[in-house]
């Protein structure tokens, strides 16, 4: 596939299927590339895939999801590669790729099932920005006739909290939109915090929409549980030591990276260290932050 086609295919998924997370969209694009590729060797195929990943990373979309999803997929390719002709290998890759994709699509439902049990009658929940899995969990809990109230931050600069607020209202869940600067103000009123993640790093911490760290520090100080809902394909091999240590491609979109002095640009994501996270709800079960590195080591050993 040529560059233009890859871009089109990828952007089309993101635009038309709102429910699909960026990581899955990237993996689907890579699978499509394998299907259409005319490469002769596995190595060539890998090169083509790596080029495609670079193309997707430069499309002004948050890179965190793409990186972790594609990394996992490349690992998948390496582990599938067998001593057979490329034709056979490709057929097997496609078959197993479909299965892999199916599992990824099921993962959100698994999280929703285990996380919705933690929403008790009469609780107040604070969430940040818009996360598909948090939204579905809240909807599921409300379907089970549980009464609760949700506070959503507006979440500058893209005001994605407004979108979340609209979705919650449409589902008939009582909710209030608050200013990002009101996190401290609202904290005493809530029982716990539930956020999504763009990626989960090796330390067990998360990379998420800027403001998550502020919320986590606040929650720790006021002793409120900080829950993270995330699919396991978002686990990334990255070990940031602090905020500046996060790769620039995570923090700024590609346009800014090219044109603006990054010292003056606003970061899009921040890093929340594991000590601020109570539990992570994933399709692999409910994990403590220390369990994350275990999973990653098992995969990349």
């Amino acid at each position, binding site marked *: 596939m040529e560059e233009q086609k890859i871009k089109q295919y990828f952007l089309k998924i993101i635009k038309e299927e709102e429910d699909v997370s960026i990581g899955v969209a990237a993996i689907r694009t890579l699978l499509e590339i394998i299907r259409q590729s005319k490469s002769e060797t596995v190595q060539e195929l890998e090169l083509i895939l790596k080029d495609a990943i670079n193309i997707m990373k430069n499309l002004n979309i948050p890179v965190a999801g793409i990186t972790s999803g594609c990394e*996992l997929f490349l*690992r*998948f390719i390496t*582990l599938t590669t067998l001593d057979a002709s490329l034709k056979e290998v490709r057929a097997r890759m496609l078959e*197993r790729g479909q*299965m*892999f994709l199916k*599992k990824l699509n099921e993962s959100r439902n698994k999280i929703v099932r*285990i996380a919705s*049990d*933690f929403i*008790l009658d009469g609780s107040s929940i604070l969430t940040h920005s818009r996360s598909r899995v948090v939204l579905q969990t809240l909807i599921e809990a409300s379907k089970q006739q549980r009464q609760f109230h949700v506070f959503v931050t507006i979440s500058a600069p893209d005001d994605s909290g407004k979108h979340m607020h609209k979705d919650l209202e449409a589902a008939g869940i009582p909710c209030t939109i608050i200013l990002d600067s009101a996190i401290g103000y609202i904290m005493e009123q809530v029982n716990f915090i539930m956020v999504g993640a763009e990626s989960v790093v090796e330390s067990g911490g998360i990379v998420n929409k800027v403001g998550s760290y502020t919320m986590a520090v606040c929650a720790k100080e006021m002793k409120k*549980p900080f829950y993270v809902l995330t699919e*396991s*394909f978002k*686990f990334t091999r990255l070990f940031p030591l602090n905020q500046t240590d996060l790769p620039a491609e995570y923090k700024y979109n590609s346009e800014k990276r090219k044109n603006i002095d990054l010292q003056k640009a606003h970061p899009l994501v921040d890093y929340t260290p594991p000590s601020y996270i*109570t*539990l992570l709800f994933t399709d*692999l*079960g*409910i*994990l*403590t932050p*220390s*369990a994350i590195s*275990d*999973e*990653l080591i*098992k*995969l990349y050993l």
Partner: protein
Amino acid sequence: MTHKEDLSDINKLISDIKQKKLITSYEIALKTEEIVEALISKRNWKHADELMDLIKLCIKFCTECLPQEATATNIMRHILKVIREEFEVVSKKKTEIQSLHQLVTANPNDVLDYTTPLKDLKMSLLDHLSEYKVELETSTDNIATQAAEHIHTNEIILTVGKSNLVEKFLKNAAKKRSINVIVLEQAPLYQGHEMAARLAKANIQTTIIPDSAVFAMMSRVNKVIIGTHTVLANGGLRAASGVHSIALAAKRYSVPVMVLSHMYKFSPIYSASHKQEAFNVMASPANVLPYSSGPILNKVQVLNPVFDYVPPELVTLFISHQGGNAPSYVYRLLSELYHQDDYYL
């Protein structure tokens, strides 16, 4: 066979626990193991799947009747894992536990079919279970022998209420070192009195103090050593009422809190799992305010909760027969004890 007949043993177990015929978790553990062993050897099951369904039914029944009682269900849950393992050994197939690695490498043909009848399964299961029984029986001794690793000479140890395991542990330590034990009396049942008497009989320097004095005494304590009712999946405890305040006092003075626990007390349940009211039990208020107290009885509400939730941050170390583990490692122990599919039934 009707369900009622199916569960008559379990019914008996539940009523024995309710009527306090089985008091310690050790008794409950042994009894449960016996029941399941009998179920495997006598019941006419055709394949592993049927057997597992039967045990799952028992677990569900137990959780419904005794939501706070984790020991019996944990034993059964572990036996489910034993069945899965033995099935894999006998059928010479292997599955991987749910992990990121499995997500990437899984093959559609790898799914095990537990409905395949296997001739040798019953025998190997019973073999495995008798091993497990020995493990249960020796668990207390195995924990107690670690005492000398954790307690040093002339240390002051604080404990609370009565626990057979802690008693053995301290006595074992006292064989090699001279120690000083402070026992909290644990109102309103005052089980600490009995504990103190038993320790004193074994020639251990023992002091008994009221529960309210825990903060005053903590500054001179070297270690807090306690038992627990259940270890929750996040590393927190469901322990006797009053333990939370002890743990907080210990945190204040940076005193390590060691929790002695058998493996069967590790439970894959979170405190916030749905049905939070199932976390605690209220005991008879008569121990707090006797019925003979007169007119005041009509004017006040008397509560006597049995358990405390202790968050994992306040626990330093769990000591099981496998050695010491930090609370953050509990998830790992759980994945070794139980199969992931059996966590929530």
